Structures are given as structure tokens and as C-alpha cells.
């Protein structure tokens, strides 16, 4: 079935969309099956043909309009072009960020399980494009089983001569190293990931210098998300133009939506960007379980602002549309909450998460996340006061943008917007602030 195009020639209809990141092919995680289905053709093409220079690969990725799938949505081709000119004396690195720890996000795990070779091919192509000789694949320690799975596949890759020295008989060589994390949310932040790789405590670094200038061990480095790199072979096989014609115009391409929470069919779905949120919940994920009503959604991982049920009408899952609606695309890991959800308790657990995961380097974050948890916990117990709600907002203002990395912002946004958008529920838990004179609070 040919994917339907809309009037402007774009592939936006999700019903007729054919999957490319996780296509329905049995045992695609095995190297032989992946190759039978056109795997490593893109790599062969760029290595064999003189026409495909590294700059041309980067240009193709630029033309595709691919934006990073790790949360920030930065254009991938542009990121690659930040790498300084090649100096044979200076080694260059690629880091693939598979630390996937944002609550509500579970797409990369499915890629590692079902299509790891698209990731390996993407890594090799990215190494070719930026002339990197080593790729570190950083995977969170909790994914121990999946690390074992892909280590088996990586060994096959080396055996076949698709990784290591002189790949496919060319003079292009890449070493792929799988690095196992050990449970720290902060390692998903790129500079902290680099410190973790270097055997340091995973404290984020001050930017600038940016990784392209001074990355791992001080050498030029590019860091991309697993899903971002897994999309590269498709871009080279089908062309940047094709990729750019899928989904939303300013945020194109197929994307893995992770729908979880109170829906009938939770899971990872591959569809073009820009799908209607209502379609995603009611048609794709089978609607709210037990016929309940929708209360709220968190569109892209715990740090993206929550949206009430009345705010999602006509909103699409792409960066621009969600920004207009007052939230963000994030990692496209959507949490759906039904009408019975206790929002105060939900927020308390999020604040606990950020308090637990703050690395402790910057004071506003180390102290602020603790205060957020304390105050929201007090509200949950019914012991809070109305003034606590303004105190929370004030605290958020003092955390946002005042730290080395974005964890403080990520901790503050859910609090700020949840309190703003569900203020009545928080007020219902508050005690009156009237305190008789002479009694200390």
C-alpha cells in the first residue's frame, strides 16, 4: 500500500503510513535478516561511491530536516556541521546517547530490541559524515539485557567487517564501544554523559565550550540520541527530500511515540510527526481504559508541561504545535491520565524524582528540588497553605536558568505548570492561612 499524501504532497496520514524505523519484519534484530531487507546498503553506497563525500552526507541529513529525538529537538545536520575542520592529529568522536531515563520514555529500548542494526548503521554513517574514528554507545545500566543483546550483534558486525578497521574494504575505520551506565538520570545530559564516559562523576560541564570544540577527553565530539541516529540510514536510502515530506513541515520525519498510562493499548507507535493528540489517544492507543474520561496528558516525558484535557483539541504532536499549546515535544513519550488521577500525588512523585536525580553540583538545583518535594509533599498530606502555591512558583523562578545544565528547569517546569493548570486541585488540599496572633507558624 502506498502511503497517502495530502494536498501539499506531504505524508501526514497515519493510517496508511508504512513504518521505517520499526518495520514489521520478523527477526529484524539479526544481522542476516537486516541485510536481506536492504540493511547496510546506505553505508555501502557512501563508502563505494566517490560521489558521496562526508560533506554530502551531512548535506543530505540537513535537507531531511531531521531534528534530534532526545528531547531538545536540535537540527541534526546543523549539529554535525559544528565539528571543526578535520585535523589528522586530532581524534574525533561520536557519542550515542542511549541513557533514556526521562520518565515516560521507552522508545530507545524498543529500537535496541527490535532494530539495533539501524542504529549501528546510523552510527557508522554519522562517523563517516563527521570523520570520527570512534563511537561510544552509552546505554543506561538498567538495560542490562538489551546491552547483552546488542553486544552479540556488534560482535557479528566486527566479524563481517562492517565495523573496525577498513570497513567493507575501504579505508574507513570505526571502533564502536558500548559503555554501560549505572543508573543516573543526569547522564542523559550530554556533557554529563561525557564526564561519565571519562570515568568521572557525571557532573554536567559548563558550556561553552560545546562538545564539537571540546568533547570527550577534550576532543571534538558529536552527541546524538539513539532514535536520531537510527533514522540516518532511512534518510540516505530514501533521500532527504522523502524524509522532509513526512509529517509536520517544520519538524518532519517518522517518530516513535511512546504512549503509556491509562490507555487500552500502551506501547511504542511509529507514525509521522504532527499526529493529532486526540487521534493518538483515542484511535491509535485505543482510548482511555474502562471508558473513563481524559483528565490530562504529559506529551513528552516528565519535564514537559502538563496539558489539561480541554487544551489538547486540535493540537498536533510536533514542536511548533505543542509550543503553541503551551508545552513541548520532548521525547514524544506521552503519559495519559484518566479522570481519577490525583494530580497532587502525581506531582509529588515527579518532584521526588528530580530531587533524587539532582547531581548536587549547583545550589539552586540541589536545594530547590528538595524544597519542591517538601512543599508538594506537605500539600499532598493536606498540611499546606495557600501561600505555598505562590512559594512554589517563586521557587521555580529562582531555579530556572540558574544552573549549569537543564535539570533545574526540567524539575521546575512540571511544578510551575501543574500548579498553574490544576490550581483548584491544589487549593482544595490547602488549609486556610488564618493563624491566630501570637502563634508561631
Amino acid at each position, binding site marked *: 500500500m502506498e502511503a497517502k499524501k495530502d494536498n501539499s504532497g506531504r505524508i501526514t496520514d497515519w493510517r496508511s503510513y508504512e513504518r521505517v524505523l520499526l518495520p*514489521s519484519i520478523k527477526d529484524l534484530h539479526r544481522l542476516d535478516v537486516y541485510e536481506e531487507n536492504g540493511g547496510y546498503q546506505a553505508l555501502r553506497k557512501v563508502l563505494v561511491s566517490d560521489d558521496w563525500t562526508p560533506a554530502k552526507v551531512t548535506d543530505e541529513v540537513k535537507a531531511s530536516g531531521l531534528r534530534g529525538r532526545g528531547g531538545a529537538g536540535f537540527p541534526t545536520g546543523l549539529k554535525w556541521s559544528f565539528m571543526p575542520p578535520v585535523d589528522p592529529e586530532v581524534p574525533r568522536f561520536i557519542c550515542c546517547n542511549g541513557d533514556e531515563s526521562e520518565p515516560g*520514555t521507552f522508545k530507545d529500548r524498543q529500537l535496541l530490541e527490535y532494530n539495533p542494526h539501524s542504529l549501528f548503521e546510523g552510527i557508522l554513517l554519522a562517523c563517516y559524515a563527521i570523520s570520527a574514528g570512534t563511537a561510544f554507545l552509552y546505554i543506561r545500566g*538498567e538495560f542490562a539485557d538489551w546491552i547483552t543483546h546488542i553486544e552479540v550483534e556488534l560482535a557479528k558486525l566486527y566479524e563481517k567487517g562492517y565495523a573496525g578497521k577498513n570497513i567493507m574494504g575501504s579505508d574507513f575505520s570505526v571502533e564502536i*564501544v558500548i559503555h554501560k551506565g549505572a543508573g543516573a538520570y543526569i547522564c542523559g545530559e550530554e556533557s554529563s554523559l561525557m564526564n*561519565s*564516559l571519562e570515568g568521572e562523576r557525571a557532573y554536567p560541564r559548563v558550556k561553552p565550550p560545546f562538545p564539537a570544540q571540546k568533547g570527550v577527553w577534550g576532543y571534538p565530539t558529536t552527541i546524538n540520541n539513539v532514535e536520531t541516529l537510527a533514522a540516518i540510514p532511512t534518510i540516505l536510502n530514501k533521500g532527504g527530500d522523502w524524509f522532509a515530506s513526512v509529517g509536520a513541515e517544520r519538524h518532519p520525519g517518522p517518530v516513535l511515540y511512546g504512549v*503509556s*498510562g491509562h490507555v487500552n493499548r500502551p*506501547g511504542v507507535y511509529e507514525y509521522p510527526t504532527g499526529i493529532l493528540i486526540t487521534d493518538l489517544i483515542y484511535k491509535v492507543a485505543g482510548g482511555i481504559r*474502562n471508558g473513563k474520561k481524559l483528565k490530562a496528558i504529559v506529551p513528552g516525558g516528565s519535564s514537559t508541561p502538563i496539558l489539561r484535557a480541554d487544551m489538547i483539541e486540535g493540537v498536533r504532536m510536533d514542536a511548533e504545535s505543542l509550543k503553541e499549546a503551551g508545552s513541548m515535544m520532548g521525547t514524544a513519550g506521552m503519559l495519559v491520565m484518566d479522570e481519577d488521577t490525583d494530580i497532587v500525588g502525581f506531582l509529588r512523585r515527579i518532584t521526588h524524582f528530580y530531587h533524587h536525580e539532582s547531581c548536587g553540583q549547583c545550589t539552586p538545583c540541589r536545594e530547590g528540588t528538595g524544597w519542591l518535594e517538601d512543599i508538594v509533599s506537605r500539600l499532598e498530606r493536606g498540611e499546606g497553605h495557600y501561600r505555598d502555591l505562590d512559594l512554589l512558583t517563586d521557587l521555580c523562578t529562582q531555579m530556572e536558568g540558574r544552573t549549569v545544565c537543564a535539570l533545574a528547569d526540567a524539575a521546575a517546569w512540571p511544578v510551575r505548570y501543574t500548579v498553574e493548570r490544576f490550581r483548584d486541585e491544589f487549593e482544595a488540599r490547602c488549609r486556610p492561612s488564618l493563624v491566630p496572633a501570637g502563634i508561631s507558624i
Partner: protein
Amino acid sequence: MIELPTTSGDGHTSETFVPVFSNEELVFTTDETAQIERWKSHYPTVDGAIMRVLWLAQEKFGYLAPEVIRLSAEATGIPYAKAYGVATFYTQYFKKKKGKHVLDVCTCFTCQLCGGYDILHYLEEKLGIKSGETTSDGEFTIQQAECLGACDAAPMLQVTNGRYVMQLTPEKIDAMLDALRDGKSLEFESMTLPQDADEMGGNRRSDTQAVLETKAPPIAETIL
């Protein structure tokens, strides 16, 4: 009045450090040393290998006592203080002795809404301990974990930094505890992608026996 710690003559606290592992125990075998050397060769400096070495040491000794961290630091060739900083930064490295099986129950975000706390409380009741404690026979430790990245299978838990046990119900927990007590290993569970179920009738992997179909998660507070 603030109570000060008792100090000895040299100004240090009187708490003496007693190693748990003897010097005879604290060695890596030839195979392990060869593996460590391979890891060290993967990075521009040997420091990068410390996380792998700590993992190896934890699997071998059960947890990272200070002397185990020292052994790992020496094997990697980095200062003890640096290795200690790494070991204490990450939650998956155990700094204290835990039970034989550590049950990391996810209670974060999706799991919270789908009954993660109910699962935690069920385990607490069943084993007679609180979260963070170890059973008296040393078999099980229960912990609360942050998001483990399996929200489609909520509620879920992880057994000793390894296998994921997904779509938990009280019956499934009972079976899991029995299997672990009997020394059986748990099977790797593969989640069917909903689109795979539509387009190819189920799981796409032929090398995985335990396959979980997509289904609506349970309702929190009423799961028991």
C-alpha cells in the same frame, strides 16, 4: 546541645574501618584481569573503564565495600578517591550489602499511576519488610526505583540490576518469588509492539519465548 563524635588523640573519629573481605579474597582472576585490560584499551585513557570494572567487581563480590572499590581502582590504574567518587555517584552500585535478590520496584510516573505503589506494598507485606530493607534470611531486598524505561509494561520491577519483570500482578509476583527462591532464572520478556500485533499477529522475535501482549494497565489502589 550538639553531640560531638568521640575523637581519638590524632583528631580522627574513633570509628575504625574493618574490611569485610580478606586480602586472599580480594583478587581478580587471570580471565577477569584480561577482560579489564580489554576494557581499558577501549578508551583514550584507562579512566573510562572504571564503570565496567566496578560492575565486574559488584557481580563478583555482591557489593562495593571500600576495599572492593580500592581493588577496582588498582586494577584500572586510577586513584582510589576517583573510583570512590564514581562508585558513590550511581544508584546501581551497591555500597552496602544487599539481599541475594534486589527487587527494584518502579514507582515513578507511569508506574505510579498504574499501581507501582500497590506492587511495592504487596511485596512489603508478603516479605514482611519495608522498602529499603532486607529479609532476615538475606534472600530479598526491596527498593523503590526511578523510571526504568518500561512504561508500556507498567507496573514493573527489575531483579538485581538485570532482568525486567513486566506487567506485574500479585500472582506474577508470587510466582517470581518462588522461582527466585528455588534458584531458577527468570525468562527474558519481550513486549509486543501494538503495531506488530496488528500487522504481523504478534511478537516479531523468534528467539524469545516469553512474550507479553499489549494490554490496558491495571488501576492503581484497586489492583490487590
